[in-house]
Structures are given as structure tokens and as C-alpha cells.
């Protein structure tokens, strides 16, 4: 099921803020549409939805969407969102970050938001590169991937966000791509049902910078690769993987893949799965637990007053 784009624009976007700063063909528009659709299908009241974003191309999304919105500082969105959620536990909080935002400068905040299991849907748009600043290496740039700060190919191992989320204690983890739009919306809807910290990693394309430097200058090439290089999860056989997107096109089997095999600390057999990767049963949002505690304290105070 999909609602008309014109309806989404009218109901969920801020026309005065458009056009966006995003390049033609960027996956962020698809992601913004999917978020709006998910909110719409869940029947959420816009007044009761907050979107908190960081800095970067992804960070601009909060300005375009007609919710209660904060475009915060680089990497700090989960911390701003934690304050808001603890103050207004009844609000639905969407925290939107890019890969550099979430995993590099904001890594500590992300880890602790997951550890606290604070109730929010965290959307991490992973395009393997810093886009807004001009195509520099990000924590998910694959080994051998060319960027403006890795002119000979990145030689660092990329972050395994899935393993991090598992270890830190996130309640839910799903991976989607901007190629698979129906499941993208469904996965955000699933995340909205979670009590606690629900992370949706969305593989997106920066063909203008990362693609151009890695023989995938067309958005369509990168988006097609998302289908060829990812596998749907089988609930009975969940495997972990961390390569965000493949390094080169088949026509150009140059250094990157070779570099991959030379690094002995890389799990080169891993596949990138999409779908629900894990969900922790019985998870309860931190803000709910906190306010339950306040209720108990209030009861104790009343009992003590009655004794007097």
C-alpha cells in the first residue's frame, strides 16, 4: 500500500522549506517519503511526533517534515532526543542521523541511547560517505572505497553497527535499502511499534560523491547494486554482515576487492541482510520505566502522609 506523493507533500512536508538541498536521485527523498508513509499508516497525530536530526545531508530532513522538529548539532541528536523523550514520554520521537553522524562523532551518544533503551526510532541513513562536506571517508566506507580523504582507497575496517546495536542493548534492529521501498516503509512501521530503542539502518546512495569516485556515478547503478548485494533475512537463519554496499562495479574489478582479501581482520564472506535483523522480546522503554518509578514514589509519599 502506498499513498500518493501529493498527499505526502501536503500533509507531512513544509512547502516553505522546499526544494530540499539534496541532489537529484539522492535516496534521502525516498527515505523521507517512507517515514511519512509509516507515520500515516500508524495513524499518528503529527502534533505528537518529534523528529530530531543531526548534521549532514540527512540532518536537513527535520526541516522539511511537518512535525515538532530539532536540527541539532553533529552527532548529538540521540542526546537531545533522550532529553525530549524523558520530558514528554507520550511523544513519538524519530531520531534521524547519517552514518558519520551516528557512528563517528555521535558514537558515544548512540551507544548509550541503545544501552538505556530509551524509546525512539533511530533512523541511520548509511551511504558510506560524508556527503554534505564533500565526500570524505565515513565510519562505514568499505575497505578500498575511494573518497576525497582516501584517494588511494580506504584502509580502515568499517563499523559493524549491527553488532554494536546487539551488544549495547537496542530493542530492535532492521536494515532496509532505498531500492526496496515497500519493505522500507514496513520496517519503519515495525520500529514504531517497539517499546524502547528501535534502530533502522537504511542503505542509501551518494552517487554524486561516493558513486562517482567508485565507478558508480549513476544513482540507478548504486540502487541496483543494493538489490544485487543484499539478501532478505530468513527468520530462521539470521546471519550478521557489515559490508554496506559493494565496492566496485563488475566491470571494474580493480584494487578495492583485492585490498579486501589482503586484510586479514575482515570477514569478507559476510553478506548484507535486509529485513528485521533482531528484536528483543519484553523490551520496555526507559521513559516508561522512569515514570512508573515516579508513580511508585508518589504512592509511597501518599502512604507516608496518611500515616501522619
Amino acid at each position: 500500500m502506498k499513498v500518493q506523493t501529493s498527499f505526502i507533500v501536503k500533509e507531512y512536508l513544509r512547502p516553505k522549506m522546499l526544494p530540499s538541498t539534496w541532489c537529484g536521485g539522492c535516496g534521502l527523498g525516498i527515505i523521507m517519503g517512507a517515514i511519512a508513509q509509516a507515520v500515516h499508516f500508524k495513524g499518528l497525530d503529527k502534533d505528537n511526533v518529534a523528529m530530531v536530526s543531526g548534521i549532514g545531508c540527512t540532518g536537513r530532513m527535520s526541516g522539511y517534515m511537518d512535525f515538532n522538529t530539532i536540527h541539532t548539532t553533529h552527532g548529538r541528536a540521540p542526546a537531545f532526543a533522550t532529553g525530549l523523550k524523558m520530558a514528554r514520554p507520550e511523544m513519538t520521537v524519530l531520531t534521524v542521523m547519517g552514518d558519520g553522524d551516528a557512528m563517528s562523532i555521535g558514537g558515544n551518544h548512540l551507544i548509550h541511547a541503545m544501552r538505556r533503551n530509551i524509546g525512539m526510532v533511530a533512523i541511520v541513513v548509511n551511504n558510506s560517505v560524508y556527503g554534505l562536506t564533500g565526500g570524505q571517508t565515513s565510519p562505514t566506507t568499505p575497505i578500498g572505497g575511494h573518497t576525497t580523504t582516501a584517494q588511494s582507497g580506504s584502509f580502515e575496517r568499517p563499523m559493524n553497527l549491527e553488532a554494536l546495536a546487539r551488544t549495547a542493548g537496542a530493542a530492535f534492529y532492521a536494515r532496509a535499502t532505498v531500492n526496496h521501498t515497500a519493505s522500507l516503509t514496513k520496517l519503519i512501521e515495525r520500529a514504531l511499534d517497539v517499546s524502547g530503542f528501535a534502530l533502522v539502518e537504511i542503505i542509501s546512495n551518494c552517487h554524486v560523491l561516493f558513486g562517482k569516485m567508485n565507478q558508480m556515478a549513476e544513482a540507478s547503478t548504486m540502487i541496483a547494486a543494493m538489490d544485487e548485494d543484499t539478501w532478505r533475512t530468513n527468520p530462521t537463519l539470521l546471519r550478521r554482515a557489515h559490508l554496506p554496499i559493494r565496492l566496485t562495479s563488475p566491470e571494474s574489478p580493480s584494487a578495492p576487492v583485492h585490498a579486501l582479501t589482503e586484510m586479514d581482520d575482515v570477514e569478507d564472506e559476510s553478506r548484507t541482510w535486509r529485513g528485521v535483523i533482531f528484536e528483543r522480546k519484553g523490551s520496555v522503554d526507559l521513559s516508561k520505566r522512569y515514570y512508573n518509578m515516579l508513580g511508585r514514589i508518589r504512592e509511597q509519599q501518599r502512604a507516608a502522609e496518611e500515616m501522619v
Partner: protein
Amino acid sequence: MPTPAFMHGNQAVAEGAIAAGCRFYAGYPITPSSEIAEILSERLPQVGGVFIQMEDEIASMAAIVGASLGGLKTATATSGPGFSLMQENLGFAVISEIPCVVINVQRVGPSTGLPTRAAQGDVMQARWGTHGDHPIIVLSPSSVQECFDLTVRAFNLAERFRTPVVLLSDAIVSALREKLVIPDAADIAIFNRTQPTVAPDDYKPYEFLHGDVAPLPRFGDGYRFHVTGLVHTELGYPTEDAEIISRWWEHMSSKIEDNLDVILDWEEIELDDAEVALVAYGGTARSAMHAVSLAREQGIKLGMIKIRTLWPFPEQVIRNLAGRVGTIIVPELNFGQIRLEVERLVAGRAAVRGINRADGIQISPEHILDVVRGLERVP
């Protein structure tokens, strides 16, 4: 009935926060501020408020801005190194005009410095610590009573002018125990941020008012506005239009500069016939006040100005002082951060000298008096 109490400065700050209506605290432990967090972790749940210990000071500052947008009065407390980490999001609170209170209990720095020893080295960090030009309000308490009173005032000014307010305490007043009187709740003036009366479509969250601020509704109240660290229009949308930006700057500075009568706070002590004046603030003002009474016992005409609002600086008060006394002495636990301001304003019309140390030892009243007597010996 006003209630006499006996507590230390950090406790008075915590109780002042509760009395002012603070219902959200996020912080990270650091000496010598940690008691504020410890006390509020017990007190806030008792009044239905939120206490959360964050992963660092960056996150603490972020959380109090987020919670303030949720409609609560919010605070964090720290010391120099943590205050440095807060500067990024303190700037965010300035530009997005979100009320909040940041308490900095100063210790000797830079870096880990002397963590348990008092200093006043963050005067300029409090003024200019975050990047870019910006208005800020900084208050400095010199007694346990003032820890309580100025904390209440910090919240009121934050709410009134939609700005972060820094309470610049120090390890002298924070650890000091003395008597204070807590007024009846009904006698404590409380200011709550104003709420919009217009329809959501007509609401301008950042209206460029001269000398005033726009109302600030809670998130969830139907106004669905945008908050950003980018320079923005009256609607909160990013702009690069120089004409709009100059109107925005005019609003940002005038909301403070046009309200100095409300914001400035100082006290004149024995100044009527004084020939020499001390200018002091925070923990050092205690030694200065003692020095004044010792001097008066000895017939020395010493007076002082105790500054409680450090920023914006009481410029006219100091300019006027230059016409009244021949010498101004500025004792402070740094190497002259306020003395430089005083020299700038006095502009040669009086002699200005500092008494400065930052070795973890307080400036004694006798030390100040020796310096004053030394002046008298000069023909």
C-alpha cells in the same frame, strides 16, 4: 514562614533549582559540582521531575535543551573541563533561544588542574566559550544564600529572555556551609516562559522582537515549529539573506542589552566616602567584604562593589566608580580576567590593580588589606 537552614552552596543551588521550578536535570559527575547531581537525583523524583545521568557533558547539555523544548525547566551542573565540553550545545541553546541553566562550579585549570581547589578562571569561558558572537547571562554567587537566590534568578532570566543562563559558582561557595533563609514558596518570584495566544499558522517561534522574545510553546502543543542551529528566519527556517541576518542579530543582542535594568545585579558596600574601592565577585567577594570591615575598623576609607551579574558586565557602574575613587583593586582567583574589563572601562581615570592567584589558595582579607595599606604608603 521563611525557613532558616544550614547547608553548603551546592545544596543551596539544588534547593534553589527545585524552588524555581526546575523539573529536569541531566549531568555528568565532576568535582566540585557532583553534590548538585546527587541531591537532585533524590529531590527531583520527589516532585515528579526527571533526573538522568548522561554519558558525558556534551550529552547533558543536549538533553537539557531537548527537555526544555518538552516544556520543562532544565539544568545541568559541571566544572571547568565539563563546561568546555558543553560549549558546543550551549551555543545551540543560544542560537535556538532555548531556556536552560548551566551551573559551573569552578576549580583550578586548565585541564584536570587542581580538581578540588577553588578558582575563578572560567569568567571568560563563560562569556566567550562557545564559538561565534553571542549574548549570554552569567551570575556569580558569593554566599550560600546567594547560591539559592541566584539559582532561582538564573531560571527566571532564562525563561524571561529565552537564553541559557550560566551560574558561575566556585569551590569556595560550593563547599562552604553556612546559614541561609529559604523564603516561603509564595514569596519566591517565579517567571515562566510565555505561551503563544495566536493560532499555530500565525506563530513565529523566533519573531525578531526588539528587546523581547517570542513565546515558546511545548513540543506537542500543536505548534510544530522547527528548531535549528542554523541562522534562521522568524519561522526558524535556515537563511543566508544578509538583511534578515542583521535583523536577527539586532534581536539577539537587544533582548539582553535593552534589559540591563532587569539583568544587572550588584551591591555597593561602604562606598559613600571611599577613597579606594574593591571590585569582587564569587568566593573572593567574601574576603573582600571582610577586608572592608577590617579597613574601616582601622579608619581606612575602603569600599567595594560586589558583582552578582558578571555578564553582561555592569559597565556603567564601573565607569561611575572611576569618578568616585582614586584606586580600584580587583581581587580574583585568576590572572586578571575581570581586571581587564575594569581597566577598559576606567580608561585611565583611576589606578587599577589586581590581586591575583590561581594556586588553589584563597585570597585572604589580610592580603587585600596589605595591598590597600601599601597604597596608602605611596606618597
